[in-house]
């Protein structure tokens, strides 16, 4: 079996390339920090395994996810390194390539996004690059599948033994060179490690690579440990960096060819002048989100959803009931299937059109390159209140699912800032909350559906930012890390990438309908059909009524006067979609139209809005609580997150309801 390690800077298209090489699909985004753990896949009909490692700028890790890559090199035996670079930013990308070339394993250098480079009016002579770097160089354009087949063939057909082992020997200053030779010889003689590995270890050690220094300590590499002070005192790290940089500049100057056409760069810079404008940037960002909700709720999603609902609550539930009656199903079983499963699970499934449209919009924003600009625009706002713009990326990923959002927080270097981002992530409105928003906006704000949902999303962001500021003060976070985000060139979103992104995310939602939403629906059916005295025909005597009525006095101040809503909120802990399916079951209806009419008697627009705010902010779902626990490594933070969010949700919806009631 051959193992190919896929390594490169963040946002060089590694994940896209991985998907194409391995005929598989992993989450792709046009911004940094998408891959947080290594992924593995195999090339079809071969024994070649490709490992996709998180993007890194150098082998010296700064963040938790960056250490995955260097640890992989130290602990695993990759046969080939496939170094993916952004051809447009080769000068910076090659800094990592040099470290990989020094590692000694065969390296294939893929110059990805080669079309973008050509559009910027520059090209590199591939042969010159290959000669200077001493490795195989291939050009690819993963987004258009260009060069992928050739790359796959290169990996498949050339036996690893035939690939040249790289022998890059940079012209480091003589004092460094002498020390490298001395340490390498001593390591080879006394510790039985290969010459290449020993020389690479020495350079990395001189470079103050934390993981390598720990590795040296663990293995008691005296030739390195004894010289550590000398290496540091003589600033070997800086000298190594300068030598590498000069080598890169020299190589690129030699290989550079100028070609015409700078149209894409011009277009990108023209668009950026407007969308990242200090004054216009934020309103444009808000307008884009508004348009997104307009499409999902008003223009495309809801009309489709209404038809799906009419079909499910009409023919499907009607004929299912008749069928069950004909085969002799007793009333309780019919109720479980029709009023429970079909009403609950079906009720959630009718929101698929809205969810798919929203996911498609998010995929377009990601693929076009706008999301990186959104991070830049929000960075200004965040800096104004003393926060790091980097936190925005995990937060925006949290719009899809809070769990992945929290995982993406690993890209934040400072432990305290990472903890803050983890704690505020659940306030971002994940897609699971969409069905319940959709239900309430259709009932109370039919003409302003998009605006209301937009306000809920932005309220989530505001609460998250306010809490972040609060935590910063509490934790005494003083160090202000710099936020660097690469602005990729804009490109027209590709239909297959958008479709796969949308389908991938929507598939997760459908799957949830068959598992946890189904389970939550059955649970609420049981709770609403059984009471202390056994099976009940009057729902007011059921367990769910007892629980809801017991807590009702607490919820009246925030405008919730129906015990059904309170019981439904409890099931939302399983998964937020279950809230809407529970409402269907508790109000005994399979039709959204009937449910909306019932809501009209129980809520006012202001109490409905207060309830939506409560749902936005109260307890994270099970999976999110579990992720907070595993990412912070402490139950304390998970429990804290649960209680603090209830408190914030209650306080805010109380204010909204009480103040709102004065005016409306």
């Amino acid at each position: 079996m051959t193992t190919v390690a896929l390594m490169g800077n963040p946002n060089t298209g590694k994940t896209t390339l991985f998907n194409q090489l391995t005929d598989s699909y992993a989450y792709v985004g046009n911004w940094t920090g998408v891959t947080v753990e290594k992924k593995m896949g195999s090339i079809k009909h071969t024994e070649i395994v490709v490992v996709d490692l998180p993007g890194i700028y150098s082998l010296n890790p700064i963040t938790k996810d960056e250490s995955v890559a260097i640890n992989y090199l130290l602990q695993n035996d990759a046969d080939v390194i496939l170094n993916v670079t952004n051809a447009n930013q080769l000068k910076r990308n090659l800094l990592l390539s040099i470290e990989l070339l020094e590692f000694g394993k065969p390296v294939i250098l893929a110059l990805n996004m080669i079309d973008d480079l050509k559009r910027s009016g520059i090209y590199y002579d591939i042969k010159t690059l290959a000669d200077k770097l001493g490795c195989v160089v291939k050009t690819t354009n993963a987004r258009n599948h260009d060069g992928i087949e050739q790359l796959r063939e290169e990996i498949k057909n050339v036996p690893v033994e035939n690939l040249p082992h790289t022998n890059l020997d940079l012209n480091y200053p003589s004092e460094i060179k002498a020390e490298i030779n001395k340490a390498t010889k001593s390591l080879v003689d006394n510790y039985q490690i290969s010459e290449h590995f020993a020389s690479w270890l020495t350079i990395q050690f001189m470079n103050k690579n934390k993981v390598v220094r720990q590795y040296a300590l663990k293995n008691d590499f005296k030739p390195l440990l004894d010289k550590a002070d000398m290496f540091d005192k003589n600033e070997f790290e800086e000298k190594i960096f300068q030598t590498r940089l000069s080598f890169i500049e020299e190589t690129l100057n030699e290989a550079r060819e100028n070609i015409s056409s700078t149209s894409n760069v011009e277009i990108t810079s023209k668009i950026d002048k407007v969308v990242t404008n200090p004054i216009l940037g934020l309103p444009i960002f808000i307008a884009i989100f508004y348009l997104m909700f307009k499409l999902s709720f008003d223009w495309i999603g809801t009309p489709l959803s209404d038809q799906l609902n009419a079909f499910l609550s009409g023919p499907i539930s009607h004929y299912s009931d008749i069928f069950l009656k004909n085969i002799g199903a007793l009333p309780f079983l019919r109720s479980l299937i029709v009023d429970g499963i079909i009403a609950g699970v079906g009720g959630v499934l009718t929101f698929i059109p809205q969810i798919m449209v929203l996911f498609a919009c998010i995929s377009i924003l990601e693929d076009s390159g706008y999301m990186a600009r959104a991070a830049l625009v929000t960075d200004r706002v965040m800096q104004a209140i003393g926060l790091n713009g980097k936190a925005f990326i995990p937060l925006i990923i949290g719009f899809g699912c809070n769990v992945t959002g929290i995982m993406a927080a690993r890209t934040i270097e400072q432990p305290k800032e990472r903890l803050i981002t983890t704690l505020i992530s659940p306030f971002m409105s994940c897609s699971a909350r969409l069905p319940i928003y959709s239900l309430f906006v259709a009932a109370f704000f039919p003409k302003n559906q998009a605006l209301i949902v937009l306000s809920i999303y932005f309220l989530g962001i505001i609460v998250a930012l306010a809490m972040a500021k609060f935590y910063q003060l509490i934790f005494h976070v003083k160090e202000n890390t710099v936020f660097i985000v690469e602005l990729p060139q804009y490109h027209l979103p590709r239909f297959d990438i958008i479709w796969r992104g949308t389908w991938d995310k929507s598939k997760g939602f459908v799957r949830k309908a068959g598992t946890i939403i189904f389970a939550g629906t059955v649970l609420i059916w049981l709770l609403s059909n059984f009471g202390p005295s056994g099976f009940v025909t009057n729902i007011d005597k059921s367990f769910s009524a007892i629980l809801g009525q017991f807590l009702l006095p607490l919820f009246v101040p925030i405008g919730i006067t129906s015990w059904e809503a309170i019981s439904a909120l409890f099931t939302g802990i399983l998964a937020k979609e279950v809230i809407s399916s529970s409402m269907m079951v508790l109000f005994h209806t399979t039709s959204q139209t009937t449910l909306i009419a019932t809501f009209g008697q129980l809520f006012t627009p202001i109490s409905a809005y207060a309830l939506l705010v409560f749902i936005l902010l109260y307890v994270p779902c099970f999976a999110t609580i579990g992720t907070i626990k595993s990412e912070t490594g402490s139950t304390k933070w998970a429990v804290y997150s649960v209680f603090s969010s209830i408190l914030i949700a209650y306080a805010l919806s109380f204010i909204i309801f009480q103040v709102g009631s004065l005016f409306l």
Partner: protein
Amino acid sequence: MSIFTNIIIALIIISFAGYEIYKVAQKSKKGKCAACDYKCEAKMMAERAKRQNG
């Protein structure tokens, strides 16, 4: 359909629901990717590779 069959079907549905809730609770304890219900391609391949490598 006899009462017995009715009860058996209801019990199957309820047990499946109970099992799903148990599974979610277990997955959530692990946090990370395991908490995600969707078995994406990358996750399946990682599992396959793990099995292949023993």
